[in-house]
Structure formats: C-alpha cells, structure tokens
C-alpha cells in the first residue's frame, strides 16, 4: 500500500492525499477552490475511491463531469481535468 500527497497550483490550489494499492483505497481532495453546491465534492471523492490504478483518465473525466452536470455544479478555480490529471500524477 502506498500513501502519497501532492499539491498543485492551478487558478486555485488543489491537494490530493491518496492511499492506493492496485486501486484507490482512500482519497482526500482539499484546496481553496470553490464548488457550488459544496456537497458535490463528496460524490466526486466517492466516485474516485476504489477505481483501478493506473487510472483510466478518459473514463474518470467522463464520470466526474457527469457528477458535476447532474448536480448542476459549478467548479471554480480548478477543473475536472486538473483533478484527474493530478490523481494520475499522484498515483504514478
């Protein structure tokens, strides 16, 4: 099992703390970004927890975008791509 953290500056800061084996065991997404409604972040974390490592970026991008769309959510300061690219980086 590996534990890794990464902080990246986009328009706002994003930090991922990940514990993973051949899949993501635990994920924490933090930062000074804005997300409306805020509860959407819990759904994104839930969706990304348990996925196989190495991650399949295209699938995760699509699924994360779907969560935002279905919640009519607005993510400001970071993008879905930022989250998934950083997740790929932190699990490499």
């Amino acid at each position: 099992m590996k534990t890794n953290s990464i902080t990246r500056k986009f328009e706002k800061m994003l930090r991922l703390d990940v514990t993973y084996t051949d899949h993501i065991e635990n994920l924490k997404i933090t930062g000074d970004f804005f997300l409306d409604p805020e509860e959407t972040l819990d759904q994104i974390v839930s969706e990304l927890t348990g996925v196989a490592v190495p991650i399949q970026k295209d699938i995760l991008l699509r699924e994360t975008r779907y969560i935002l769309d279905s919640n009519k959510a607005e993510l400001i300061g970071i993008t879905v791509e930022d989250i998934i690219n950083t997740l790929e980086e932190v699990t490499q």
Partner: protein
Amino acid sequence: MKKFRMITFTSFNAFTNMALDEAIMEFVRKGISQPTIRFYGWDPSAVSIGIFQGVRNEVNLDATKAAGVDVVRRLTGGGAVYHDRLGEVTYSLIAPLDMFPTNIIESYRVICDDIIFALKELGIDAVFSPINDIIVNEQKISGNAQTRRNGILLQHGTILYSVDVETMFSLLNVSNQKISDKLIKSVQKRVTSVVDQTGASMEDLQKALVMGFKRNREIEFGDYTDQEKSRAQELVKEHFKNDIWTYRL
C-alpha cells in the same frame, strides 16, 4: 427592491461570527429576517479556513494554540485567512440569490464593487481581481468568499485595515508554490492594508464601507434578532466549535 438590514460593526468570537451567518441565512430563507449586511470583527483573533481545506495543511495549530487564536472552518470556499482582532473589518452579505447575478464571478464583482467604492472614498485605488480578491497595485487588500444554499447567497470577506504579516504567516502554512507562482519574492509583499495605503482610521473605513454597501440598496439599520442569536449559539455547539466539523479534512 427588497430592503436590506444593515448591522454595524460588532466583534464576536470566530465561532459566533460564522454561526450568525448561517443563522441569518436560515431566517432569510424562511422569510423571517430581511436580507442583511453585517460588519464585524474577531475577538479573539482567529484563523478561518475554507470549507474544502485541510486544517492541518493550512494552519500551524501549535502556533494558533500558543497565541490563543481560534480556528474555525467556514461555510464558504477559498483560502485560510488570519483575522486580527484589531486589523480588519469583515462583512457578510446574506440575501436571496435572485437579487444577484446567477454567474458566480459576476456576483462577486457586484458585491466587491461596493468595497472598491468604499476604498476609493478613502483615496485607495483598488480593483476587482477575479475570482474573489480586491487588490491595490497587485497586493491583496480584501479576500471574499461565497456560498449559495437553498436559494440564499452568503458572501463574506475581509478588508485589511492593518496587517501584522509576521503573525499572519506564523499562523498559516503558506505554500511555497503559491508564492512562487505569483512571482512575488517576499510573502510580505503579497498583502497590503488601509493603513499601508492611507492615513484613514478604522472608523473611517467602517463609515466608508457603510456608504459603499448603501449606495445601490435600500437600507435600514438594525440589530441581530433574539431568534438569530439563539440559533447562532446552537450552531456554535452543533457545528462551528465542533471538532468533527473543524477537523473533517
């Protein structure tokens, strides 16, 4: 146009300040309280963190404890802020969402324009810096944060009156990456204050902010209701002073 209640500057502890915002949101949503603009300070000094921030990542908890500085998690996004007891004015604007632009950045701009007007009254030439800052010559003088819940908008923000950067950065864990990205060599040069810019007093700043927020709104001065104060004390216990909330990330 709906009339706003304006509550003049009063200081509370961090937990009560955040709980009052949430309590007023609840009562505005129920139609019991008017849309509200409140000005306040923080006593004792405090650090507030954004709703998505990790408290241990952002705050030097040993330093805040040693200094008697409270730590509270906000309802809003954005970054960690040091609220000096004597060094800032904080405002909250709480109103039905339909009174403001749907676009989040535009709604920030509308409200921040009132602060920019106030600073101009004091001779400070400030501009809105999206997403959520007001800057003077590239230095931040005001940070703002917003949440929208159940049809109600809450925007709160700080206007730095004087800034004790050494204390501020002894309490906050500031990312080196964030600093280098902004190409600013010294952390101290990232922020400025009313005192740095002009000889205005704290009272002058408070008066200017009242003018700024009044200029495009129908206002009547008021106070917190007993219901709001009572609900705020419940929320302090249930929520803002509860470690499950503060340390959840």
